[in-house]
């Protein structure tokens, strides 16, 4: 009831004139492929990134501030023969994209906090069954219904630990409209490559902010498709062991007739109660992330070469940090930024290197302390007073001046 009211309270967002605009944009993006600078919202960038990555199935449920992704794909997917379906809730949405993926689709859904919470069981199912799919969570202020149109970075830990049971996660976090496009493609690619549910976290402001972007020509977009099995059906194992834990994936209707279950299973996909097979499966889920960490982790290191103070943050807060760094540098303060584009798996090595080289680390984030725990975990001296939080949970952003003030305090 509350959620419904929230949505109704913002009719303007759902009734924006989009039809004609999308068609022009489609011309720009699809037909000519000579891409000009266009003014684009983060949510639009996600939608076009999904299309360019080859997403041909979207199931979703309206929720602020992610609804534009669904609206755009409802107009664009039918033009390309893809499927758009508005499901009865977010639980059904994650289930439908997982089912479609097992039938061979590249699938994606987009939601925000309340919907993301509802999807957690389904995300766990996609992970244990190693089914590629992407969940975009345009974060809003919580807990619960919270402030639907205000930014927060409160789902960083949920994106990793939200579903019950142990399971490693791949979570990407853009800081701009252009990067939203790029990381959507990367999320779809990683889902296909690693056969898992990849999560893309956006900040509400990035989802709704318009920036001028020039999207790349399709020739420069690298698209990864899942590996298909080449063995005859009776040789096929749905979870084949191999060195890099990247195994072929058959689809329903191709003659392989495999079994998929959310129960702990053996390499054929059949349920098992044997502890040896259970630990094999769990290790497989862990190793496919751990053994490929170099491929998964992406960080931006900004003016870190001579920095004595480092700022560690992601998403929109990193934009404020960059502005603060420019101001501080103008006053001669040596400060830099380390920004994870992949927040899970966490960039441990880069953070360790940062901790060796700087005297102070400032961690600004729009929550009551999530990223900072990871830095603390990697800080050798636990009593270290040189780890400085800036935390805000009132629906407002952390501004460059907030960060500058803290930089000056500690420098």
């Amino acid at each position, binding site marked *: 009831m509350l959620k419904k009211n929230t949505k109704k309270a913002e009719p303007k967002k759902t009734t924006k004139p989009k039809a004609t605009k999308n*068609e022009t944009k489609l011309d720009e993006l699809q*037909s000519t492929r000579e891409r000009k600078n266009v003014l684009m919202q983060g949510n639009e960038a996600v939608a076009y990134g999904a299309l360019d990555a080859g997403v*041909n*199935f979207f*199931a979703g449920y309206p929720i602020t501030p992610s609804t534009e992704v669904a609206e755009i794909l409802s107009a664009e997917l*039918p*033009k390309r*023969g893809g*499927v758009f*379906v508005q*499901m*009865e*809730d977010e*639980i*059904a*949405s994650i*289930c*439908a*994209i*997982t*089912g*479609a*993926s*097992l*039938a*061979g*689709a590249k*699938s994606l859904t987009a939601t925000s906090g309340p919907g993301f919470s509802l999807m957690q*069981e*389904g995300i766990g*199912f996609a992970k244990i069954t190693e089914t590629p799919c992407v969940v975009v969570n345009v974060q809003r202020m919580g807990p619960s219904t919270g402030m639907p149109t205000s930014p927060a970075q409160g789902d960083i830990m949920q994106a990793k630990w939200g579903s019950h049971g142990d399971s490693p996660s791949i979570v990407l976090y853009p800081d701009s409209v252009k990067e939203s496009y790029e990381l959507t493609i990367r999320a779809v690619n990683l889902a296909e490559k690693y056969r898992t549910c990849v999560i893309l976290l956006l900040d509400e402001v990035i989802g709704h902010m318009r920036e001028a972007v020039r999207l790349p020509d399709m020739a420069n977009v690298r698209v990864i498709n899942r590996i298909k099995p080449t063995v005859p059906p009776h040789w096929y194992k749905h979870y084949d062991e191999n060195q890099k834990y990247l195994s072929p994936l058959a*689809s*329903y*209707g*191709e*003659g*392989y*007739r*495999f*079994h*998929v*279950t*959310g*129960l702990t299973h053996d390499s*054929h996909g*059949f*349920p098992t109660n044997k502890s040896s097979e259970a630990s094999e499966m769990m290790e497989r889920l862990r190793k496919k992330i751990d053994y490929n960490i170099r491929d998964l982790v992406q960080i931006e290191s900004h003016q870190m070469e001579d920095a004595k103070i480092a700022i560690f943050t992601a998403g929109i807060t990193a934009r404020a940090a960059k502005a603060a760094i420019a101001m501080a540098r103008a006053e001669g303060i040596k400060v830099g930024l380390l920004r994870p584009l992949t927040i899970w798996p966490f960039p441990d090595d880069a953070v360790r290197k940062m901790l060796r080289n700087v005297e102070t680390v400032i961690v600004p984030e729009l929550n009551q302390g999530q990223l900072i725990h990871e830095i603390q975990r990697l800080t050798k001296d636990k009593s270290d007073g040189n780890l400085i939080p800036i935390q805000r949970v009132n629906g407002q952003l952390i501004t460059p001046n907030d960060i500058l003030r803290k930089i000056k305090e500690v420098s």
Partner: protein
Amino acid sequence: MANIPQRIIHEYLRHDKKFPHVWCAGCSNGIVLGAIIRAIASLNLDRDDIVMVSGIGCSSRMPVYVDFNTLHTLHGRSIAYATGVKLHKPNLKVIVITGDGDCTAIGGNHLIHAARRNIDLKVILINNNIYGMTGGQCSPTTPHEAIATTAPYGNIEPDFNVCNLAIGAGASFVARTTAFHVLEMQGIMKDALEHPGFSLIEVVSACPVIFGRLNKKGGAPQMMKDFRDNSIPLAAVDKLPPEKVEGKIIRGILRREIRPEYCAQYASLVERVKVKEADNG
């Protein structure tokens, strides 16, 4: 190996490692599985084109035993997963195996919306009036005043009439049968498999070990006899006085109508949009 005569169902079972099954002696699930397989065999459907999807519960363990494309999902969500499979590959026959708790309690929302869309899923709801796998808790179809482990003083809630629920939500094929009426069940399943639209078959079934024991139903053979004696075919309903119909299980095809199927609707939408795009471009 004992010398077992080869039956048609053996051709459709997975021989590698998935037996014995988890069902108790006297359970109706095997009867339903047999009827499904014989209905599929009678239509000569290609098993590569069949996807069997289920949720959680005793009946939902069925897919692992059969040699189709199989998907054992989350509690209550089988219809939502099946919707994804069917929409991406509408040429596949998607059969959903579910129980009363799975489909009408936790999964009730997905049931009514799939019925409303009239998406071509074949939902076989094995109704044993109880949560069997978790040991006998009250479900939405546990009869009023029946005993369950979470209704030790008798169930104070009224029960769902799941067929009426499906009809009300817009299902285009709705039927009810019992585990006793195997040939009728097989025929209904065949009809459902050929019906272009959302189909729900309620199979009233016996859980003698839990529901039967809690409610003193007298064991599996007695429960089957009760299905025989306490059910009447739909065709006979009009000929009987109301007092003889009261409280009986009405069997037969309760609703069969042709209305636009969802995947077909979507395909025609795609065609329409593509034509419009071509005209514009």
